[in-house]
C-alpha cells in the first residue's frame, strides 16, 4: 500500500515539475519573424473581467481586420493576452510573462489604473512600448514622457479631465450645487473625486456626503437612504459598470429615482443598464471616452463591425482597445519598422484620426482626447458634446 501511494506521489511530483519547467524550454521554440508581436494585459477574471473581455475582443477585432487587409506593410499583428485579474501583482506577473515568454515588442494594458502604474517600471526596464488604452488615473502620465517613463504612452483621457467636465456641466447646465459622492473604492473612483473636489469650488458646489463602495458591493440601501435624507441634488458616481444597475434599482427602492440623478461615469448609457431601472437613470449625466451612439462614420462602422462579429454591442473598453491597436498599426507604418524605439518615436509625433477626433501626444506621452458628455433623456443617451481640457501637470 505504502508503495503505491509513493509511486502516485512521485508521478504527481514529476508532472508538477514538468509543468513548472515547461516555460523554460518553450522560449527557444519561438523563432523571430517579422510579425508585430503585441501583448494585451487585461483583467480576464475577477470583478473587472467584463472590461477585460471587451478589451481583448476589441483588440483582436482590430488585429483581425488589419491582418485580413494584408497587415501593416505585410507584417501581421500577433496578439498575445495575459490576465491581470485587476491586481497590480498579477498584472506585473502577466506583463513579465508577455515580455519574457511571448517576446512581445508592444503592450496594451491594463484597464485598472493600479495595474498600469505597476506595469510602468517593468516595461521601462525591458524597453517595451506600453500604450495604455483604458486607465484614467492622471498619475500614469504625470510620470511618463518628460516625467520619467520613456516607454509609457496613454491613449485615453484622464480623470482630471473628466471630473472637470462633469462638475462644470452639472453646475452650469443643470444648476446643481449640493452633491453626494458615491464612488468605487479604487484609484479610479477616489482620484476622480479628488479632482472633483479640486474643481467644485469653482462652480460653488459643495459635497454633502462621501462614500466609497468596494468592488462587488451589492447593498446600497443604507447609504442611498442617507443621501436621500441629506438633501443632495445629484449623486456623483465614478463607479463600475456592473454596479450601476444595482445602485439604480435600489435608488428606485428608497425613492431617489427621478429626483436625484447620477452624474459621473460607470456605463450609465447602455441599453441593459437603462432597462434595469429606467426611472432612476433618467437625467443621468455621464462623461465617457466613447459611447456606441457617438455620431461619426468611423465610430458607426466600428459598432456595426463589432456587433456583426460578436453579436453584442461594444462598450467603451472594446472601442479604446480597437482604436489603440489601429493607432499602433499607424505608428508602425510611420516608423517603417517594428523596432521598438523607432515606433516609439513615430508614436510621439503621430497625428491620428480617431473616431472621436485627431489624436496627438504631448510631452508626457498623454494623448489629447476629448471626453464625450451625454445625458439620458427618455431612456436614450443623448450626446451633449465633446470637451477637451488641458492637463495641469504638477511641476
Amino acid at each position, binding site marked *: 500500500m505504502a508503495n503505491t501511494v509513493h509511486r502516485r506521489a512521485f508521478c504527481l511530483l514529476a508532472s508538477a515539475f514538468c509543468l513548472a519547467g515547461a516555460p523554460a524550454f518553450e522560449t527557444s521554440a519561438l523563432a523571430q519573424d517579422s510579425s508585430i508581436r503585441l501583448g494585451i494585459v487585461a483583467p480576464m477574471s475577477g470583478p473587472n473581467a467584463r472590461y477585460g473581455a471587451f478589451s481583448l475582443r476589441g483588440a483582436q477585432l482590430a488585429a483581425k481586420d488589419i491582418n485580413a487587409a494584408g497587415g501593416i506593410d505585410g507584417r501581421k499583428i500577433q496578439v498575445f493576452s495575459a490576465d491581470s485579474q485587476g491586481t497590480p501583482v498579477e498584472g506585473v506577473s502577466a506583463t513579465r510573462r508577455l515580455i519574457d515568454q511571448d517576446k512581445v515588442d508592444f503592450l496594451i494594458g491594463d484597464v485598472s489604473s493600479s495595474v498600469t502604474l505597476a506595469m510602468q517600471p517593468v516595461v521601462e526596464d525591458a524597453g517595451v512600448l506600453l500604450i495604455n488604452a483604458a486607465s484614467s488615473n492622471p498619475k500614469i502620465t504625470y510620470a511618463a514622457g518628460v516625467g520619467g517613463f520613456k516607454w509609457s504612452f496613454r491613449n485615453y483621457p484622464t480623470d482630471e479631465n473628466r471630473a472637470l467636465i462633469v462638475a462644470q456641466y452639472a453646475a452650469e447646465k443643470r444648476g446643481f450645487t449640493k452633491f453626494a459622492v*458615491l464612488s468605487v473604492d479604487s484609484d479610479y473612483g477616489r482620484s476622480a473625486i479628488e479632482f472633483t473636489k479640486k474643481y467644485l469650488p469653482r462652480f460653488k458646489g459643495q459635497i454633502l456626503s462621501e462614500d*466609497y463602495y468596494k468592488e462587488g458591493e451589492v447593498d446600497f*440601501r*443604507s*447609504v442611498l437612504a442617507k443621501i436621500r435624507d441629506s438633501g443632495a441634488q445629484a449623486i456623483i458616481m465614478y463607479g463600475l459598470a456592473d454596479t450601476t*444597475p444595482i445602485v439604480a434599482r435600489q435608488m*428606485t*427602492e428608497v*425613492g431617489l429615482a427621478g429626483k436625484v440623478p447620477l452624474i459621473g461615469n460607470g456605463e450609465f448609457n447602455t441599453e441593459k443598464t437603462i432597462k434595469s431601472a429606467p426611472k432612476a437613470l433618467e437625467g443621468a449625466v455621464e462623461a465617457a471616452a466613447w459611447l456606441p451612439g457617438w455620431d461619426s462614420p468611423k465610430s458607426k462602422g466600428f459598432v456595426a463591425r463589432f456587433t456583426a462579429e460578436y453579436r453584442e454591442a461594444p462598450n467603451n473598453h472594446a472601442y479604446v482597445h480597437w482604436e489603440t491597436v489601429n493607432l499602433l498599426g499607424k505608428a508602425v507604418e510611420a516608423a517603417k519598422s517594428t523596432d521598438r524605439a523607432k515606433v516609439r518615436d513615430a508614436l510621439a509625433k503621430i497625428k491620428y484620426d480617431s473616431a472621436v477626433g485627431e489624436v496627438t501626444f504631448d510631452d508626457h506621452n498623454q494623448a489629447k482626447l476629448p471626453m464625450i458628455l451625454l445625458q439620458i433623456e427618455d431612456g436614450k443617451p443623448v450626446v451633449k458634446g465633446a470637451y477637451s481640457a488641458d492637463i495641469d501637470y504638477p511641476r
Partner: protein
Amino acid sequence: MLFQISEQIVNGIVTGAVYALVAVGMTMIFGVLRAINFAHGEYYMVGTFGAWVAIEYFDLPYPVAIVAGVIATAFVALVIGQFVMRRMVGAPAEAGVLATLGIALILQNSVILLFGGGYKFFEGGYIEPVTILGVSLAEQRLLIIAVAVLVFFGLELLVTYSRMGKAMRAVSQNVECCAVVGIDVRKVVVRTFVLGAALAGLSGVLTAPVNVSVYGGMGELITFKTLPIIIMGGLGNVRGTFFAAMILGIAESLVATYVGLQFRDTVGFATLMLVLMWRPHGLFSAQARY
C-alpha cells in the same frame, strides 16, 4: 432621525436574513464536521447561477427558477459531499482548510470558465417597492425575511424531532459514540452538508433580484461575511447564528449610514474581534447546539 434609524434597522434585518440563511448551513456543517467551510459562499453563488441559467436559457418564471437554483446547488453539494466532505470526517483542521479552499477555487473558477467572468444581469423577482410604516422596501426583501424566519422555524423542528436532526445533534456532540450506537457519521455529514449548501443556494436565489448582478466571484464576499457570524453565534449553534447574523446586518447598516460605506465590510471582523476580547468563546454558547 428616529425614522431614519428605524429604516436602517429594517435594512439591517434584510441583510441579516440573507447572512443568516448562509451562515446557518456553515454552522451546521461545522457542528458535524468540526471544519470551517471556506467554500460555503460558493454555494450561494452556485444557487444564483442555477436560477440565472433557468431564467436566461430556459425562460422559466422566477418561482421555478428558485427551485432550479436550489436543486442545482444541492446536486453540486451532493457530488462534493460524496467525494470530498465524507473523507473529512476525523481529518485534522488543516486538511479541512485546504480542501475547502480548493473547492472554493474549483467552483468559482469553473463557473467563470462556463459563463465568463463578467457580471450577469438577473431578471425576475419581485422588485416593486412597497411602503410599510413609511419605509420603502422591495417586495423581494419581505420575501427574504419571511423565508429566513420559516427556514429557522423549520430547522428547529427538524433538529428537535426528525431522525436526521437527532443524528445531526448526536454527531455534533460526540463522533465516537455515534459509531457505537450505529449512526452512520459519514451519511449524516453528507446530508448536513447538502442541506447547508442548499440553504446557501436558496439565499443566493432569493437575493439575486435585489442584488441584480450575478458573477463568479460573488460567493467569496459572502464567505467573508459569514465567517465572523458563525464564530459569534457559537460554532454549531443555530439559534445563536440567527441572532448573530441579525446583529451583524444591523451593525453593518448603521455603520454604512453613519460612518461610511467603505467601512462596512470591516464591521464583521471588527465586531468579531471585539466580541472575542470580551468573550473568547463567542456571544452564544457553543454547548447549546441547535
